[in-house]
C-alpha cells in the first residue's frame, strides 16, 4: 500500500498523497478511513464487506465517498501506478554540471560538530591556489558538454580564508563563460567571521546564493561555534549577516539562507528557527547534525519523538501565520515544497547527483563524489590536473536511484526524497545504497509538514506561492 498512496493527519487536517502522480487531496474523515480499506486496482463498484469494516458510517455515505474516490482514480490522480522504473534503468552517467570547490581546508572556527574535522577533512590544512581554481573552471567547462547552467559552490573549511582564489576563479569564469556558451552560478557557504565591506559587496555582486552559518540563539550558537580560543562567534557574525542581507538587492542575487545545525543539545530547535527569524532573516534552514552515533551531540533514535513534536510546532506556527495573513512568516528550507511546479519525475529518481553530475574538488585538485566523501580514499575519482574522472564510480552513482536503494521502491516519500543522502548511507550504514534510518524518519516527518503547509498556502493564495512577511514578529 505504501507505494501508491500515503495518508496522514496534520493538525486535524486529513491529507492523502497520491505518490505516483503527485496528487494531493484534502479529505474528510470518512474518505480517510475508506481509503485505508482499499487496494488498487479499483472497480466501479465499491468492494463488498466495506460497510461491515466501517460500521461508523452508513452504507449510503460510504457509497457516495467511494464514487468520488473512483472518479479521481479514473483521472489517474489517486491509486495511480508507478511508471518510472524504465527511466531509472536507462540512466547512464551524465555531464558534470555542478562543483563544490574546496578552496580552503582550513577554518578559523573550531565548531564542535564539524564533519570536516575542524576544516581540514583529515588531510592537513591547505588553501587552494588561484591557478587550481582557474583549472577547476577549465575542467568544469570541458566536462559539462551540452549543459549551459553550471554551478560552483565555494566551500571549505572556511572559503573566505581563500579570498584571492575565490576572486581569481570567479573573474576567470566570467571572462570565458560567453565564449563557451556557459552561465556560471556561484554560491558560497561561510561562517561569516571574515566578512567585511569589500567581501560583502563582491558576494552580493557575483554570487547567486550564499549560505550563512548560524545555529540560532546566542547560547546555543556559542556553545558549539567557537573560535580557536573557545569564544562564541554570535556577536561577531550576526551584524555582518544583517549587513550582507540588507544590501543583497542586485537582480538575480537576492537568494540567501541563514543555515543552522541542531544537535542533541538543542532539541527545542524551533526556538532557534524563531530566533533567527526575529533577527530579521526570512530564508532559513535549520538541520539535524551529521555525526557519528557515539558523539555526545548526535541525534539518536530516542530523540525522534521530541524532534517530531518540534516539527509539528513549527508547522503550526507557520500555518497559523498563513491563515491569518495569507503569507508565510519565513521560508523554512525543509518545508518548501512546490506542489504544482516541482522538478520533473526524471530528476526525482536520483536526487543529489553526487559522483555523477556533481563533484567536489579539494585544494590539490583531487575529485570526490561530493563534499561529504572528501578524504575517503576509496571514493577518490581523479584529479583535475590529470583530467581523469573514474567512470566506474560515476556509473555506479548513475545507477544509484530510488529503485536500487534499499527500502526506497516501497517508500511513499520516494519522489520527494529521491533516496536520501548517499554519503550518509555510506558513513552510517557502510553502503551508499542503504538509507540511514534516522534520516528517513526525519525526512518523512518534514515532508508531511511541508505538504500540509503547501496545502495551506495554496488555499490561502489560490495556488500562488505565498510570499514571506518580513520581519517576522509572530510572538
Amino acid at each position, binding site marked *: 500500500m505504501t507505494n501508491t498512496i500515503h495518508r496522514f493527519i496534520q493538525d486535524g487536517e486529513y491529507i492523502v498523497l497520491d505518490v505516483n502522480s503527485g496528487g494531493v487531496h484534502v479529505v474528510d474523515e470518512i474518505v480517510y478511513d475508506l481509503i485505508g480499506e482499499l487496494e488498487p486496482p479499483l472497480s466501479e463498484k465499491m468492494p463488498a464487506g466495506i460497510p461491515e469494516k466501517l460500521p461508523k458510517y452508513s452504507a449510503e455515505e460510504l457509497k457516495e465517498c467511494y464514487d468520488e474516490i473512483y472518479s479521481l482514480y479514473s483521472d489517474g490522480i489517486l491509486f495511480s501506478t508507478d511508471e518510472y522504473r524504465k527511466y531509472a534503468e536507462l540512466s547512464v552517467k551524465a555531464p558534470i554540471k555542478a562543483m563544490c570547490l574546496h578552496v580552503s581546508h582550513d577554518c578559523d572556527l573550531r565548531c564542535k560538530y564539524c564533519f570536516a574535522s575542524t576544516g581540514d577533512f583529515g588531510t592537513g590544512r591547505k588553501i587552494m591556489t588561484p591557478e587550481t581554481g582557474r583549472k577547476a573552471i577549465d575542467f568544469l567547462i570541458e566536462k559539462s558538454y551540452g549543459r549551459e547552467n553550471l554551478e560552483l559552490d565555494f566551500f571549505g573549511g572556511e572559503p573566505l580564508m581563500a579570498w584571492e582564489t575565490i576572486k581569481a576563479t570567479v573573474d576567470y569564469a566570467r571572462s570565458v563563460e560567453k565564449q563557451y556558451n556557459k552561465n556560471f552560478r556561484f554560491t558560497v557557504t561561510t561562517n561569516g567571521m571574515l566578512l567585511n565591506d569589500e567581501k560583502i559587496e563582491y558576494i552580493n555582486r557575483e554570487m547567486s546564493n550564499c549560505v550563512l552559518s548560524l545555529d540560532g540563539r546566542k547560547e546555543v550558537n556559542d556553545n558549539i561555534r567557537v573560535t580557536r580560543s573557545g569564544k562564541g562567534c554570535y556577536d561577531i557574525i550576526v551584524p555582518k549577516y544583517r549587513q550582507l542581507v540588507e544590501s543583497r538587492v542586485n537582480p538575480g542575487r537576492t537568494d540567501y539562507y541563514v543555515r543552522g545545525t541542531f544537535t542533541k543539545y538543542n532539541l527545542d530547535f524551533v526556538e532557534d528557527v524563531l530566533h533567527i527569524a526575529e533577527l530579521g532573516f526570512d530564508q532559513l534552514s535549520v538541520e539535524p547534525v551529521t555525526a557519528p552515533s557515539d558523539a555526545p551531540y548526535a541525534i539518536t533514535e530516542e530523540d525522534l519523538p521530541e524532534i517530531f513534536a518540534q516539527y509539528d510546532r513549527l508547522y503550526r506556527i507557520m500555518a497559523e501565520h498563513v491563515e491569518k495573513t495569507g503569507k508565510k512568516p519565513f521560508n523554512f528550507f525543509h518545508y518548501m515544497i512546490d506542489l504544482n511546479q516541482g522538478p520533473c519525475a526524471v530528476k526525482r529518481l536520483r*536526487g543529489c547527483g553526487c559522483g555523477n553530475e556533481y563533484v567536489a574538488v579539494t585544494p590539490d585538485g583531487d575529485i570526490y563524489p561530493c563534499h561529504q566523501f572528501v578524504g575517503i580514499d576509496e571514493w577518490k575519482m581523479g584529479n583535475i590536473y590529470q583530467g581523469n574522472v573514474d567512470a566506474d564510480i560515476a556509473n555506479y552513482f548513475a545507477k544509484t536511484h530510488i529503485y536500487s536503494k534499499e527500502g526506497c521502491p516501497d517508500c511513499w516519500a520516494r519522489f520527494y526524497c529521491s533516496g536520501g543522502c548517499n554519503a550518509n548511507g555510506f558513513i552510517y550504514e557502510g553502503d551508499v545504497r542503504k538509507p540511514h534510518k534516522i534520516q528517513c524518519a526525519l525526512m518523512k516527518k518534514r515532508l508531511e509538514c511541508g505538504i500540509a503547509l503547501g496545502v495551506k498556502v495554496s488555499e490561502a493564495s489560490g495556488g500562488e506561492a505565498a510570499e514571506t512577511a518580513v520581519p517576522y514578529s509572530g510572538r
Partner: protein
Amino acid sequence: MKHIRTINKANLKKTAEKGGCGKCQTSCQSACKTSCTIANQQCEANK
C-alpha cells in the same frame, strides 16, 4: 465533490515524458549540504 478537495494539478506523469533536460540546480548545493530534499527544487525548463 463533497468529500475531497484536490489541491494541485498532479502532473508528475506528464513531466516524465519531457523531463530530464538537466537545466535545473543540483540538489544539495542550494542550502543544506547535508541532505537532499528534491521536492523543493524548481524546474527551470518552464521558466
